[in-house]
């Protein structure tokens, strides 16, 4: 395992954990969604790092290239990004509804308002 | 290393220096309006040098035309974005820093009147 690989994976885990921390600990719903997105991108990095080959070219066909990076993770992540934004939009819409119904998007206040939550 | 490579390296180097200088300006200047001028450097000439150097790298291909397109696009949008931002700041009553304030020992950075 080269040093670069460890650095890549360490940062990926770090980002994943910051995302998780944001989702758990911040009380603002929009910020929770940002945390969710950070978590999501860390997974994207992980996939793309797995697909990378040192010295390989990007997966665009070219006669004089022998070694390509793996196109499969790229395909999975490409669609995942768009789907991620679509689901984020649903989450934001939910936040707007919550604001309109309860008057706040802070989780603590919501808990205080409705003890059954 | 032929002459085009050297020229390209010179252009890229100048662009790099301008970029770093602009960034230093953004850190050094006292308030938002003056920082805007510093970021103007990196938007104009720095971009121009980089694009020029890259065009020499790519040679006479379609890629060079695309680079020119990027340059023209940025020439249109960068001042527009800067102006929009400045107008928003003016609209938001952000008070500009003046020499008099500094002389009076006031640091009114970020104060909204």
């Amino acid at each position, binding site marked *: 395992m080269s040093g670069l690989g460890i650095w890549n994976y360490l940062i990926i885990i770090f980002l994943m954990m910051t995302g998780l921390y944001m989702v758990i600990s911040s009380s603002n719903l929009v910020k929770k969604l940002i945390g969710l997105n950070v978590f999501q991108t860390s997974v994207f990095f992980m996939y793309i790092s797995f697909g990378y080959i040192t010295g390989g070219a990007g997966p665009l066909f070219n006669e004089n290239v022998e070694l390509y990076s793996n196109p499969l993770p790229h395909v999975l992540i490409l669609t995942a990004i768009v789907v991620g934004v679509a689901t984020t939009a649903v989450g934001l819409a939910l936040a707007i509804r919550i604001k309109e119904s309860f008057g706040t998007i802070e989780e603590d206040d919501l808990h205080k308002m409705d003890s059954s939550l | 290393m032929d002459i085009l490579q050297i020229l390209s390296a010179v252009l890229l180097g100048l662009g790099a220096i301008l970029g770093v200088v602009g960034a230093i300006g953004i850190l050094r200047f006292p308030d938002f*309006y003056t920082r805007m001028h510093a970021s103007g450097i990196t938007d104009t000439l720095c971009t121009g040098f980089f694009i020029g150097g890259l065009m020499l790298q790519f040679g006479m291909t*379609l890629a060079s035309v695309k680079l020119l*397109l990027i340059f023209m696009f940025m020439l249109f949008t960068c001042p527009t974005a800067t102006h929009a931002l*400045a107008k928003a700041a003016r609209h938001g009553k952000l008070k500009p*820093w003046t020499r008099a304030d500094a002389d009076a020992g006031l640091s009114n950075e970020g104060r909204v009147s």
Partner: protein
Amino acid sequence: MKHMTGLLFFLALLWWVLSGYTKPLLISLGIVSVLFVAFVAHRMDVVDEESHPLHLSLKLIRYWLYLLGQIVISNVKMVLIILSPRPDINPRIITVRTAQRSELGKVVLGNSVTLTPGTVTLQVEGDMIEVHALNDDSAKDVEQGTFDQRVPASIEEKS
């Protein structure tokens, strides 16, 4: 109509520059795309003399060359200011009257002022423009109205 023709020409040029392929399929797709975009742009009502100044092509090129020279000069000045240990800055907001009548002229002027580091257009209102200048030197340039005189005169004649 004239503006639409100009738009079609520039769109076709853009497609050709971007694509670079001469396969019949891609060229026909390109034609369809250009026509579709022109249709949507017409529906959006964004094609007019404000956005497509066809009437000043040659003068605009000369103006651009002049502008480029100005940009280089003021960039060098800015670099010296930033790197000097005690920056010579004396920012102020000045208001100058422009000779431009048309909106396009004002826009070209405003963006030129912003493009040269050291001055930023803050507001364009009526025929007054408000400029934030970094120091006396750059403020003088704007007050003397060097750009104002150089902006192609034909912009005003047309509208």
